[in-house]
């Protein structure tokens, strides 16, 4: 299986093969031989050339999140043949965006009916003496905007709905 992967500015074409319960992963001109044992719902013990890596991997709104010893890597992964992005948890039903902090709406960046990509900024909120851009957690259409510029909002208040 072929993938196109990217994380932290690095890109790679990856091939994964399986043999005798192990995985041969070719990245560029290197081939890694992974001994992979599942240790939990999102956890695995991976041995690679004698090195032991205790990892977690999960799908997120943007792709994959991999934790390796306190480091977090957000990995974009595409099917190299079909070019389709993988990961990216699909949600059923409309997505509600709530205020992550008490604060003031400084700017509304979208209008009802706009289509947005995952990660697109939709509102700017001032809170804790800083301006924070709130992003769409997934792609969709703006169904409803519940706040106006200048409006003060409580923590948890419903701001906007993405359909």
């Amino acid at each position, binding site marked *: 299986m072929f993938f196109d992967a990217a994380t932290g500015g690095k890109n790679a074409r990856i091939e994964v093969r399986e043999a005798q319960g192990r995985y041969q992963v070719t990245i560029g001109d290197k081939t890694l031989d992974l001994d992979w044992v599942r240790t939990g719902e999102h956890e695995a013990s991976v041995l690679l050339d004698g090195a032991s890596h205790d990892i977690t991997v999960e799908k997120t709104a943007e792709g994959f999140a991999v934790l390796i010893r306190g480091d977090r890597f957000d990995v974009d992964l595409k099917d190299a043949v079909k070019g389709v992005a993988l990961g990216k948890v699909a949600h059923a039903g409309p997505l509600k965006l709530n205020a*992550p902090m008490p604060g003031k709406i400084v700017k509304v960046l979208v209008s009802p009916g706009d289509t947005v990509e995952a990660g697109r900024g939709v509102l700017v909120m001032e809170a804790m003496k800083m301006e924070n851009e709130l992003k769409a957690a997934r792609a969709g259409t703006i169904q409803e905007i519940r706040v106006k510029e200048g409006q003060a909002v409580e923590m948890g208040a419903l701001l906007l709905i993405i359909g």
Partner: protein
Amino acid sequence: MPSPRKFKKILIANRGEIAVRVMRACRELGIGTVAVYSEADRAALHVRYADEACFIGPPPSRDSYLKMETILDVAKRSGAEAIHPGYGFLSENAAFAKACKDAGIVFIGPPAEAITAMGEKTSARRVAVEAGVPVVPGALHPLADNEAILKEAQRIGFPLMLKAAAGGGGKGLRLVHEPGDLEAAVLRARSEAKSAFNDDSLYIERAILKPRHIEIQVLADGHGNAVHLFERECSIQRRHQKIIEESPSPFVTPELRERMGALAVALVKKVGYVNAGTLEFLVDENREPYFLEMNTRLQVEHPITEMVTGVDLVKMQIRIAEGEPLPFAQKDLTQRGHAIECRVCAEDPDANFIPNPGKIETLRVPGGPGIRDDSGVYEGFEVPMFYDPLISKLVVHAENREAAIFRMLRAVSEYKITGIKTTLPFFDRALRHPKFIEGDFDTSFVGRLQGENDDRTRAAELAMAIAAVATYRARRRSRAEPDAGKGEGSLWWRLGNRDTVTRL
């Protein structure tokens, strides 16, 4: 059973990790606990932990955790003799302390009068000046005309800070290094203040450059005894809120420690303060301390003091509220080793630490020597969006500062949370930073760290390989003929929704 106590039952008027922390102390003392919970918190850890639990209203705090009458009513009905307010919510509310007293219920904290005297910034500052405790030199009242500002500036000295009296959000704020720059700065600050707040009055204050935020923990009983429990270093902040704390402070000398401790005890005795409290100071580059304000309650970061002094602050709060005298004098207290706290928050450290509530899918907590995890969550819990994003306080204790830093890094490497973003990866970067390890930092550390190049590419290739293999495995499973008896792997893949679940 433990030695019988005056209180048989305590209501904890809080939620999250601090409610659980207080209940743990109660359980160890053989005191029953009553939790209160909002609609968002039926399955929260503090409800699971309590002996009794009572519903108090809808999710927003003002409809539940801030409802004084409701909470007092629950206390009375449940037969609780006392209320512990934790921090935040009603903990520094003098009216609530008074309402408890009027209802015949002990408020585990200072008397209402002490909250009023020390809880408000300008009042506390006045009391401090009277007690001879140094404060940041400045005018205690807004100055309307330029002449008054120039005159005050002479008295206060440079560098100084101009602040909009009506201000907030950094508007109308001006740092002035030299007398020659003052007039122009006043003009600009006034015009900014006028347009932002329609009020051009300015405060003026000596500017503390590269300030350290250092606080002193105190305990005072109802019998006139008061002690301090040394300092905490709280300079590492994000969004103007602490995120890493340590004790002792690498910046504080034995002389400064003794001086600040003595100032704190003097202030506490002057106002007749009772129970636990914290005096916050700014300390400048010359190690001059300036009293800033007092927190008339338990602090989030109290565990680091507990670890270096061996004193359980929550149990002491309860004993003091029961009327007991302090069981030790100042000379009995010593600091042993070094403690560090990291606040594990449901926040995105790569996006201004914006809160990031959601469901915790995996939770693996570090263990072994010198680790303390004060958590308010569990695996499977959905962190509600209505409250503070703090999910756990990770605290370490070791023989010295270097050992504590590398113990914390070890602990962070063991801590695994999936499902939400947390501040854990930030700690891995911050604690490895040479400036942190040298102890050479101030309140601007987090901002400067975020500007620096992020060197997290160490294992980027491995991370990509892992994502690819995880996908490969999931696809192989989804293709295989489902067979319930054959292996657990196939269970998930019968449901059709094949691409939404990653299972390793």
